[in-house]
């Protein structure tokens, strides 16, 4: 079983290399890319079953004993994240293959797109299984550098402009992360996460808080937590639809994953929990207010993405097993649903020629299937029962109510309000783009469209094009997966709550990495 763990990273890297070699044979390259990610998906499912059944898998890379060598740790949380991210990466890959087959190479130049995409996948998987803070940094760098390439793909003026903001902000967060690693190494003399956790208790509290805040700021930039979220709505919407879907679904969640590890294993103390709750509140409210004021669907979705990061931070900030479990379920739900919505936005753009709700109309008649593919995840994100968004929010509110502090109740209220506002923003898209007839678009007057701002430099309407079946199928597959999150909510929530219990205090994680205790 243990040999499967490194394969999760090795396969995408080897796949990227072969895809690069096969640059002149696009069909073979597509097959390699899809095959690689499908294999990783199978491996991750096996890992999840094994890990959930017995103990976490710990691999000492190169046979060097921890803490001297690098360890890879797959516990329930890591395995669950592997499965979900492999699933989303595969679905989006199929979507972009469909787009590439229909349009040629203009949006996603095959020769570099597939290798870069696979390296991005390798980076995401590395970050999830890293048992070593420096390896986590390397994983972040792998995924960030490939995301720099993907976000500036094609090198148009708008993408270079958006890419610069994204790249400079990411560089800053990486440097901050590296500096925190240096300081942590100076304080405890190790970069092994389990050993840091064991030694951190001996460090004075004020030093601990400095290190803790440095790490949280570095991860907070990546997870787009307010006030470090300004870069996201500026940069994500300009990238090609499949790229935005992957970024929105996965990259911010890698940051949230790192925050969970920080809060549960590295610094399990409650010192910063109240601060995190306030940050969660501000992220939720300010994010959704941004979404309400936008006219462009991709920008609306980017702002709801920021807003819903707040829910996950809330779950982590509760500092209890129930809260962590709810946050884990919410991450799974949000990765799937947010990516699906961005894929649906890509389909809307193809049919309507625009993503601005002031210019779209009559799509329900023109493309009923796309309408369903948008409507179901939109209700899901808005938290309508019985979808998974409702289950996740309910679990979060229950965990908050169990804590029972005044701020926890404030957060429950804010969470309910934010979910209503999300629904408002998404249903307004439905009303404008799908429900009103295309004849009404000229000179339409409605209070719903007062004070919405268009995307800067929005391109003119493009001619109507057809939607390739493969793109619809990939989006449909994601919608089915999001429905499965409701149908199989019981077993899934079981895994999430067992993962949450494992993360109650660092002892489970430390004991898994060092079964015989750490000999210093």
């Amino acid at each position, binding site marked *: 079983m243990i040999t499967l763990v490194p394969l999760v990273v090795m396969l995408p890297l080897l796949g990227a290399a072969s895809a690069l070699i096969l640059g002149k044979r696009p069909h073979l390259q597509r097959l390699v890319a899809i095959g690689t990610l499908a294999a990783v998906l199978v491996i991750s499912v096996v890992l999840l079953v094994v890990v959930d059944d017995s103990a976490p898998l710990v691999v000492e890379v190169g046979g060097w004993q921890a803490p001297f060598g690098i360890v890879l740790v797959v516990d329930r949380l890591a395995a669950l994240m592997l499965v979900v991210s492999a699933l989303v990466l595969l679905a989006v890959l199929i979507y972009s293959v469909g787009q590439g087959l229909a349009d040629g190479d203009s949006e996603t130049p095959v020769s570099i797109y597939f290798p870069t995409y696979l390296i991005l996948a390798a980076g995401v998987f590395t970050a999830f299984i890293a048992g070593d803070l420096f390896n986590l940094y390397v994983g972040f*760098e792998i995924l960030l550098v490939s995301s720099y390439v993907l976000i500036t793909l094609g090198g148009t003026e708008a993408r270079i402009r958006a890419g610069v903001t994204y790249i400079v902000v990411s560089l800053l967060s990486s440097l901050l992360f590296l500096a925190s690693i240096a300081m942590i190494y100076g304080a405890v003399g190790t970069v092994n996460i389990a050993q840091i956790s064991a030694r951190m208790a001996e460090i004075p509290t004020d030093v601990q808080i400095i290190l803790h805040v440095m790490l949280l700021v570095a991860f907070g930039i990546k997870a787009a937590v307010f006030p470090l979220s300004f870069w996201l709505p500026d940069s994500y919407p300009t990238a090609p639809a499949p790229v935005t879907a992957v970024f929105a679904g996965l990259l911010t969640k890698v940051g949230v994953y790192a925050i969970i590890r920080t809060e549960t294993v590295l610094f399990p103390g409650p010192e910063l929990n109240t601060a995190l709750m306030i940050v969660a509140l501000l992220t939720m409210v300010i994010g959704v207010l941004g979404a309400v004021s936008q006219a462009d669907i991709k920008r609306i979705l980017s702002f709801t993405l920021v807003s819903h990061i707040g829910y996950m931070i809330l779950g982590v900030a509760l500092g209890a097993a129930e809260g962590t479990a709810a946050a884990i379920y919410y991450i799974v739900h949000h990765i799937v649903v947010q990516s699906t919505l961005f894929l649906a936005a890509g389909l809307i753009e193809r049919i309507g020629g625009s993503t601005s709700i002031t210019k779209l109309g009559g799509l329900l008649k023109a493309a009923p299937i796309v309408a369903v593919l948008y409507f179901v995840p939109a209700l899901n994100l808005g938290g309508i029962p019985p979808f998974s968004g409702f289950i996740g929010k309910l679990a979060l509110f229950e965990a908050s109510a169990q804590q029972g502090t005044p701020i926890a109740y404030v957060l429950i209220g804010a969470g309910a309000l934010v979910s209503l506002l999300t629904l408002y923003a998404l249903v307004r898209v439905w009303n404008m783009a799908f429900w009103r007839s295309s004849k009404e678009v000229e000179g339409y007057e409605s209070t719903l469209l007062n004070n919405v701002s268009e995307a800067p430099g929005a391109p003119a309407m493009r001619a109507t094009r057809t939607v390739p079946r493969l793109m619809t199928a990939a989006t449909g597959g994601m919608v089915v997966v999001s429905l499965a999150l409701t149908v199989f909510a019981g077993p899934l929530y079981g895994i999430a709550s067992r993962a949450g219990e494992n993360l109650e205090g660092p002892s489970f994680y430390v004991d898994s990495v060092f079964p015989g205790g750490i000999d210093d």
Partner: protein
Amino acid sequence: MSISLVLIGIMAVLYACGVYFLLERSMTRVLLGFLLVGNATNLLLLTMVGKVGSAPIVEDGVAAGEMTDPMPEALILTAIVITFGVSAFLMALIYRSWRLERDDDLDDDLDDIALRDPTVAALGETLESTKEDSEFLPGDELEPKR
């Protein structure tokens, strides 16, 4: 743990200059700032070595306590490689920006300007076309490909 004061001083200067450059609008200066801050962080890692000793090679007569901790140096090597790759990418980006816009400044969004002061919105067109301090003469061979 004993730390060289000289290293700390150099690190502080590098950080200060780097942050100053990072706040500039010109992309080239941002790149320089990134290089300076990156190297400052490498120095920070280096100062975490603690007490400096002999080379960490296991041979007769050298006790483990007399050796320098090799770990931060391994981390620095990795960090240098990453910084190198990212700066190469940034340079490609700057070059692309030159080809497209004939300047490497990151301008304000016209919509952002309009939001601050609605009267400026009408000036959008003129703001866009004031690129005369470019090194390229108008109409030369490097016409941007759009």
